């Protein structure tokens, strides 16, 4: 998952977040303070979806659940699994029923992977992936797409690229869609006399084979995200490549330094060049420290979000607050169609730097949110290539036994409505690949020097 937040509290999201919370949000364990504020994730919201009839049905259903649990406890002949295990099964079943590839249950071990990644410690192949749902012939298929390989990771060394779709791990087919779909299609033809019994047998055999040899979506993601020193072979579909690529690599730990910064001077103009490689939980703090450690630059800040797959929403928000006069950061459309604006209190800072943002196909999720906010609010020019296009927010809900689950809880758009989900953000200035940092910074400074009126006329990022 490339964009997420830890469980936050809905009551707060309807207004701008006080700055204290921005700071708090970048602390490593924001949920520590969460419990005290927890007005109940569902409390306020569930009431919105409930007619009296719906509430009555929900209450009858809840009674059924408790009855089943008590009856099983009382009558099941053999020893039962622990209450915790049964609870985990409950959550797994409920979340799976949502049929959303980005909402899933996490075992305690999977939660620890999540925690490590939030701290910038990645294992496995070291690439951030996103699950994409594609509707084809009325059937939804899920795909694992690479948002970006992390700097210094096995994936980067092996040449994995943003936008690559991983179809097999170690030669095993990833079950992005039920293998029965093919069978059902043939069955329909057979029933309409359009296919022979032999065709049907063949389809059944192939479905069986795929189920036997295939990898579940989350099993595949786990293989990509876990392990060190293990050989993996990825089969990858790449746009423009005639046939699937075979990529071999050895898994390793990748420690991502979220922020690196230096001053770049070109043609007598200097810029603070800050690269944010991933939005780890501490990226906001690291960003502030890095920028404050640089001498003042007359040309402005060049924020490099290329290859940044996103991460913590709170970290993105903290960086946005630092580079702007605060105010709205993003608009999140949540359940029931309500729109929440997230942001920081507006300030009248006078020392606000000019900002240009570098983006590419590996800029995803909350990194896209940061780019869109700066473009919408500060009229910051985006330079590079069209971004990945992941606008969904997942919230991670930890449970007290160490397990947890994620839910898709919102769709992001910029403070002025710029949306990028599935379409990406178009850069104002397209840059060819392979330019040096100096050349890129020169182009960014040029873009910043275009008079404001002309910049506005040049338009905002595409929707």
């Amino acid at each position, binding site marked *: 998952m490339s964009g997420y937040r830890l469980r936050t509290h809905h009551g707060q999201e309807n207004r701008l977040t006080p700055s204290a919370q921005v700071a708090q949000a970048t602390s490593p364990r924001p949920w520590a303070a969460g419990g005290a504020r927890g007005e109940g994730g*569902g409390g306020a919201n*569930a009431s919105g979806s409930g007619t009296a009839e719906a509430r009555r049905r929900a209450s009858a259903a809840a009674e059924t659940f*408790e009855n089943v649990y008590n009856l099983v406890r009382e009558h099941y*002949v053999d020893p039962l699994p622990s209450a915790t295990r049964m609870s985990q099964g409950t959550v*797994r079943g*409920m979340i799976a029923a949502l049929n959303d590839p980005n909402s899933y249950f996490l075992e305690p071990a999977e939660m620890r992977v999540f925690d490590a990644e939030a701290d910038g410690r990645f294992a496995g192949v070291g690439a951030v992936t996103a699950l994409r749902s594609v509707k084809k012939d009325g059937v939804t298929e899920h795909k694992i797409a690479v948002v970006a390989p992390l700097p210094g990771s096995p994936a980067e060394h092996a040449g994995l690229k943003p936008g690559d779709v991983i179809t097999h791990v170690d030669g095993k087919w990833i079950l992005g869609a039920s293998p029965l779909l093919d069978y059902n299609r043939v069955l329909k033809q057979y029933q309409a*006399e359009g296919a022979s019994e032999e065709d049907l047998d063949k389809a059944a055999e192939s479905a069986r084979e795929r189920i036997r040899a295939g990898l579940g979506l989350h099993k595949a993601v786990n293989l990509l995200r876990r392990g060190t020193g293990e050989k993996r072979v990825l089969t990858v579909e790449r746009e423009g490549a005639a046939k699937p690529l075979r990529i071999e690599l050895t898994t390793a730990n990748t420690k991502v330094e979220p922020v690196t910064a230096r001053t770049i001077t070109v043609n007598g103009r200097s810029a603070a060049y800050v690269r944010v490689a991933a939005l780890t939980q501490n990226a906001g703090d690291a960003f502030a420290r890095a920028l404050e450690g640089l001498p003042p630059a007359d040309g402005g800040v060049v924020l490099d979000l290329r290859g940044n797959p996103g991460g913590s929403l709170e970290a993105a928000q903290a960086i946005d607050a630092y580079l702007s006069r605060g105010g709205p950061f993003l608009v999140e459309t949540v359940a029931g169609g309500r729109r929440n604006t997230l942001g920081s209190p507006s300030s009248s800072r006078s020392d606000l730097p000019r900002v240009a943002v570098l983006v590419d196909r590996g800029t995803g999720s909350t990194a896209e949110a940061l780019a869109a906010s700066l473009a919408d609010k500060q009229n910051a020019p985006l330079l590079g290539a069209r971004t990945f296009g992941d606008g969904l927010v997942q919230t991670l809900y930890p*449970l007290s036994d*160490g397990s947890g689950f994620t839910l898709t809880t919102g769709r992001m758009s910029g403070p002025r409505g710029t949306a990028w989900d599935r379409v990406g953000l178009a850069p104002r200035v397209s840059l060819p690949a392979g330019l040096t940092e100096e050349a890129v910074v020169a182009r960014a400074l040029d873009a910043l020097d275009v008079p404001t009126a002309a910049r506005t006329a040049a338009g905002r990022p595409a929707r």
Partner: protein
Amino acid sequence: MRSLVKGFVGVSVITAGFFCGFNADVLKDAPRTPVRTTLYRLEAAPPTLLARLARPSTAHAAQVTLDPTETYLAVLNTVRGDFLNPAGAAAPDPTKLTYAGINGMLATLNDRYTEFWTPQEYRQNMEETSGVFAGIGAKLDETKDNRVMITEPLENSPAARKGVLAGDVVLAVNGKPTLGLTVDKVIELIKGEAGTTVRMTLERKGRKAPLSVAITRAYVQSPVVEWRMEDERNRIGYIYLEMFNEQADQQFAAALSKLEKQGMKGLIFDLRDNPGGLLNIAHEIASRFVPNGPVVWVKEKNGQMSSMNVVQRKHQGRLATGSYPIVVLVNGNSASASEIVSGAIRDHGVGTLVGTTTYGKGLVQTIIPLGDDSAVKITTQHYFTPKKQDINRKFDEKGRQIAGGIKPDVEVAITDRDLDRMQAARRSNPLDRKAMDQHDPQVQKALGLLRGKIALGAAPRTASIAAE
């Protein structure tokens, strides 16, 4: 194999979820835990709930036990409040989420027989158990030339009252031609609610013009027993039992008495592909065969073993006195209640088992209806044969079966070639079951054994097994 016999009108073919026990006592006194209503007020979930479920602030805090009901409620509230369906569909339905949660919880038991039934599944299962269905009351089968034929209008059924005959070929249902449709498809067309009418176009031998019959569907008692004098010359009777539903014992007794009136000298009792059914019915049917003592042993949750002994009022007549030899046919799909009956017959030495090793399900389930018309089926007992053999299948770590089932006294398998021949015989004349049995090596073996025993005189009874 009996699975060749196609379905009945108004009968849904039994699915995998067979069960053995339906403990009426538990059913009646289904323990209904008083509902803590405050927990279910979804509009005002206790604010502490999520907070309590939230992870402690230190990463590696002591493991905390989760309570399934509290967890379920917290997740239900969270999902209903927070989930944004990316596909843009409506808010998740709480009932669907609840059932998914229950299924997820029960999946952790790793027992395929403990399962939750939605109201629809419960209704369907109860229909099967009661043996009463809405329909026209006729059995259908497919002929060699892919036409659908009525093989038997059931006694006193709407079909029989309208003069439908065995051998009639169904040409159309409600005007829709059946040409090219499978027998299952035709059955789908004929099925419907009681009180509604279906119009059938029939072709009858010896009549030029097709018949058109309007039949009002009604509740009919569906037969679970099929019987015939398999060997007229040697007076060997045959009774096939499809499942142990509420009608099974009564229908078995009726078939038995008809065969006895025809002077039966030997009996083939076919339990192949019988997935089981009600424990009390298995108890009753076994009591007809077994003279005294335990029919089956059951072990409760608390480890206590008790025997279910012969129901004496069922143990009477010629079957009880052992006046003719018995062969029971079993195969890998004879499960549960079938294994109780065949296990009792074998352990008491009152019959010979012929076929292949049975399925191996030594567990009893209890079905408990719930307030919203759903139900839960829970494994509540283990059972053992009268000689206390555990027949439940067991697996090694690699998932390979290492034990289980009842090994027949005489092992006879059915090959694919046998099956092809049986199928061909059946399709060439669906009305002539005996023609199919000619190619059934298990039936042939049974006939051979019984002819031998009849020639030598009736089999003696063995000693009884003591009850506790």
